[in-house]
């Protein structure tokens, strides 16, 4: 489903965020992306939904090199990839419901479908009581869950979650991971970048570790530390 071939990323300010990464992720996989702060996890995810272009290498998503997509094709790539952003990226002037519904609206879905699916996603993350709140009026964890709801509302074939439990208590974190796991079982590729040691250790899935932009470990049934 996802294939990185000799991918490097140098930011314009001279920072080498990724260094010759090659990685293949199958359709049915669930993988954890770990590594210390600044290792390049977010950068790697950004390449997949074309928020950044690599300096070198190929980024294949569903057999298409996304580096070569033109501007008009990018929106359709992004509709197939749900993203839980590390910094949430909620639209500040819209309610939680509208934020989640927006991801469906751009696909041209009919209004009734939008309402049903959005409420369903919000229920899954436990935010039904906050649907009419604006992002400013949410706690950190509530923002994070709104962002998760938006990422999954569309049933995308690929789900990228960047530190999805950074602002959640252990119980909620665990519920969210169960949710991601369930989504993965419905044939969705799931990539989770995280620092949450206990969850990685407990779930025992494939673990890919970055260090200073290099891939230093790729382990089936792995743990947070070696």
């Amino acid at each position: 489903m996802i294939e990185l071939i000799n991918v490097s990323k140098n930011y314009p300010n001279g920072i080498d965020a990724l260094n010759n990464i090659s990685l293949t992720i199958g359709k049915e996989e669930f993988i954890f992306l770990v590594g210390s702060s600044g290792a390049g996890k977010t950068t790697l995810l950004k390449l997949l939904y074309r928020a950044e272009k690599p300096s070198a290498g190929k980024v294949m998503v569903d057999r298409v090199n996304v580096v070569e997509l033109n501007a008009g094709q990018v929106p359709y790539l992004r509709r197939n990839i749900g993203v839980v952003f590390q910094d949430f990226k909620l639209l500040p002037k819209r309610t939680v419901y509208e934020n989640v519904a927006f991801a469906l609206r751009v696909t041209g879905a009919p209004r009734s479908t939008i309402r049903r699916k959005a409420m369903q996603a919000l229920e899954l993350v436990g935010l039904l009581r906050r649907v009419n709140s604006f992002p400013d009026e949410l706690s950190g964890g509530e923002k994070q869950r709104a962002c998760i709801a938006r990422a999954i509302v569309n049933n995308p074939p690929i789900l990228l979650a960047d530190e999805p439990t950074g602002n959640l208590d252990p119980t909620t974190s665990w519920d969210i991971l169960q949710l991601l796991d369930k989504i993965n079982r419905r044939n969705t590729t799931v990539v989770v970048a995280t620092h949450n040691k206990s969850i990685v250790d407990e779930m025992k899935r494939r673990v890919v570790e970055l260090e200073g932009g290099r891939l230093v470990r790729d382990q089936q049934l792995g743990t947070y530390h070696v």
Partner: protein
Amino acid sequence: MFSSLEFFIIEAFRSFRRSALMTTVAIVTITVSLTIFGAFLLLILNLGNVVGTISSRLDLVAYTGKNLSLEEAGAIQVRLAKLPGVERVEFTSKTEAWKKFREDFGGQLNLEETVHDNPLPHAFALSVRTPELLPVVAKEVADLGVIEEVRYSGRLIDQMRSLVSAVRVGGLSLIVLLSFATLLIVVNTIRLTVLARETDIYIMKLVGATDTFVKWPFIIEGVMIGLIGGGASCLILKLSYESVAARLALALPFLPIFTNQLVLTLIYAAVILGGTALGMLGGQISVSRALKNES
């Protein structure tokens, strides 16, 4: 695309309400700009009108020989009226002229004492279609052969002629400049409002919105802003022009005020359409810029 039209319009209205301050600022700016623009247009129209009226009042006077009968003069009048460029011919018989002359100058000249015979000829006042034609018509009249002397105040008419063209050229360049200034201010205002939403646009594109999808609500909003601003400006212009015109007509009855309803309606319509076009253009330009920044 059109299935989303309703959504776009709702979106436009919502952003309209939510960023109420920005919207108000944009509307006020458009209103002010268009009002200044329209006021200038009306001012220039009226200046042109004043100059035009004054110069159309500048007649050419043709004097016959002194011993012509009234019948002969009547025949000449018919020939004069047929000349190209001549609009109207007014006849003053030598008797009338002498009467008026005595009334005008009787005070200083001891006319009754010194002059016993009417020394004046018959005269024709010719209105000429445009001031530019005056010298041409003067030549035509002279060429008829039946007229002894043709007079027009050459210097005054030259001055009026250059004033007319100066007002025309100056007015036109002022209007071009003002249109440009108005466009600049409005585009910049709308650009600022979009600038403040660049984050929104970026996020929308991240969750899979196409450029078109992002663009439409902004353009519709721009049109609404422009329409409201143009409408307000049109209203202000219409009401204040009417009241100013009425007051001026009272205070300066001799001043010809421009009141051609068709042209005025056209100007008001141009202000509304101009506002709408400005809003649309502003929305288009600025959202395109924000879109180009991303992706």
